């Protein structure tokens, strides 16, 4: 099986401002530590199921940093999938929200104890509810993009999902609806390719050498990038987003990423040592370039680990939703 390349040229200087590199690193560490805490909570019986994105931080963090964040069509919409805690933290979310969702507490800010970990929903930042059926977000996303196209302004729609899921018709729907010559849409169509669908390898799933090549048939500008390199991810995302923002046309971006703890708790959620670890690699480069010292990075990780443990203790002691709340929000009341 072909594997994502490690880093373009590990000796090349890091081409982003130091401040930004430090910020990306900080968020990547925060995300990793959050996910490891979520896995631990699951394994200790403080949650029923874990799914999340360790291994995808190098791509997800830059995505969140680059989003135009706010509510309504002037801002970016994110139709996310279930591996994007890094994006949410980069948008400014506090990790305790994800811990609360894992513990299904009434205080879970994304679903009130109703949905799985990683199933974020955040109207204030245009984050559409993450759905368990994979790929449906690709059918929904053109709708927000259509509104944005009509409203004008700079807001774009971003939709993400996995590579195996591109076999679903919804992915084709997205390509068709986004690229109609009479109404091309401002949508960034992202596929994070971790080379697996649960246990089925990419070779058993799809035949195109690159998922991004499917864009060609639709005249959609497309690219495959190394999503394990936060610098490349940041730069490529920025370029793609600028294109979509300005041209009001679709862009298909495939990011090769790692799946560092398997598919989910359903496959054990254990560290997969053969996978590239984007954080380890990034830290080596940061150290090599003198951006951060090993000690600084270790201290950061320790601090987040302690923070996360404290937050998990808070979440663990919070009450579950009251049974009678099952009747709440079946329908929206007039707002």
């Amino acid at each position, binding site marked *: 099986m072909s594997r994502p390349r490690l880093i373009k040229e590990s000796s090349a200087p890091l081409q982003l401002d130091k401040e930004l590199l430090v910020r990306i690193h900080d968020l990547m560490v925060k995300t990793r530590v959050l996910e490891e805490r979520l896995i631990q909570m699951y394994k200790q019986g403080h949650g029923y199921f874990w799914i999340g994105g360790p291994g995808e931080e190098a791509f997800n963090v830059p995505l969140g940093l680059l989003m135009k964040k706010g509510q*309504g*069509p002037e801002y970016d*919409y994110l*139709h996310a999938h279930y591996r994007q805690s890094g994006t949410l933290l980069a948008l400014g979310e506090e990790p305790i929200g994800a811990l609360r969702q894992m513990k299904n507490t009434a205080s*879970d800010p*994304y*679903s*009130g104890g*109703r*949905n799985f970990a990683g*199933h974020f*929903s*955040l*109207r204030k930042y245009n984050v*559409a*509810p993450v*759905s368990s*059926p994979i790929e*449906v977000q*690709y*059918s*929904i*996303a*053109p*709708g*927000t*993009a*259509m*509104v*944005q196209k*009509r409203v004008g302004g700079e807001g774009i*729609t971003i939709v993400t999902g996995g590579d195996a899921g591109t076999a679903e*018709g*919804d992915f084709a*729907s997205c390509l*068709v*609806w986004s690229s*109609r010559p009479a109404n091309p849409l401002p949508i960034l169509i992202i596929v994070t390719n971790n080379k697996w669908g649960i246990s089925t390898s990419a070779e058993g799933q799809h035949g195109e050498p690159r998922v991004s090549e499917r864009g060609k048939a639709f005249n959609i500008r497309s690219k495959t990038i190394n999503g394990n390199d936060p610098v490349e991810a940041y730069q490529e995302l920025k370029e793609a987003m600028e294109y979509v923002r300005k041209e009001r046309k679709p862009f298909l971006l495939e990011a090769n990423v790692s799946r560092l703890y398997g598919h989910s708790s359903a496959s054990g959620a254990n560290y997969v040592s053969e996978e590239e670890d984007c954080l380890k690699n990034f830290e080596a480069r940061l150290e090599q370039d003198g951006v951060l010292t090993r000690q600084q990075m270790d201290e950061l990780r320790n601090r987040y680990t302690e923070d996360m443990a404290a937050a998990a203790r808070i979440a663990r002691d919070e009450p579950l939703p009251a049974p009678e709340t099952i009747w*709440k*929000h*079946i*329908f*929206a*009341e*007039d*707002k």
Partner: protein
Amino acid sequence: MANMAQAIRMALHYAEENLGVTDIFGEDVGAPLGGVFTCTQGLKTTWNSPLDERGIIGAAMGIAMGGGRPVAEIQFCDYVYNTIDLLKLAGNTCWSSNGDWNLPMVVRTPVGSGIRGSIYHSHSFDATMTHIAGWKVVMPSTPLDAYGLLISACKEQNPVMFLEPKALLRVKGEERIPGEPDDDRALSKAIDAPLGDRSQWKPAWPEGLEAFAIPIGKGKLVREGSQLTVVSYGRTLPLCARAAALLADEGISVEVIDLRSLWPYDWEMIKASVQKTGRVLFVNEDTEVTNFGEHLVRRTVEELFYSLLAPPRLLAGKFIPGIGLADTLEMASVPQQNDITDALRSLAGEQP
């Protein structure tokens, strides 16, 4: 008087002018056709979508999320089945996000038999749709109700499934829609697209159309009666009303309820009627196994058992894979006038 297709069109016109409807779309919904049943001719915000039902429902959800107000059409309900998971998602979005998101969207789709549509243009969708929580589901049986329910649907914060009984789309109403002109021919001339080249055509919408809204969840007492109750909706409702008129001549007094809204539905109206008559027949044309009427029968038994003089009954479509094209096959598959009259007569005569 307007027929149901015209009523739907007028309601949509009112809604795009006054209720913020931004997108009326689906396969062939826009120009030049204006819908295979003409329900969307001449409207301002119509557009033709790709031939992709999942895309249509998905786009409606996205448009609603983006702050638009979509009215999407699935050309025939038979083709809505490959969107079931999206309908489920639309229904649970508010609940699963703990009230954070809501989807103000309407989906219209023609349902039922009556146009000799054979296997794939005759299906019903009431049982399947009422199984999906988080939606409001309505099905009018008159043009006025179609108008009023669609106005309500376009004001909703929640997804609404608007089921259009195909057999009734061309039937003229007996009540005038508020603002509709007195002369039917004048109405047709003003709002029905001409045959042939329509590129220059523009409708002349009646000026006085009103925000006449029928609340979702309220049934209509179509006819008062004292001996038995029949509860129906859509195509079979006028057949029930005719049966009641017929049976009145035989001295059998039938109360007729048009449910209009399937979810939420007017249990209070059913309850009051059954407590009065002690006998009830539920009629619809969906297949009879796991039928929405079975739910109504169950609730009647559980809550009104001691008011009953006879077992509640359901008259529905036969549990077969489709509706055959031949007249004899269609007639045998879904309730017809005689079936309803016979069932009511038999229920009236049932002795414990």
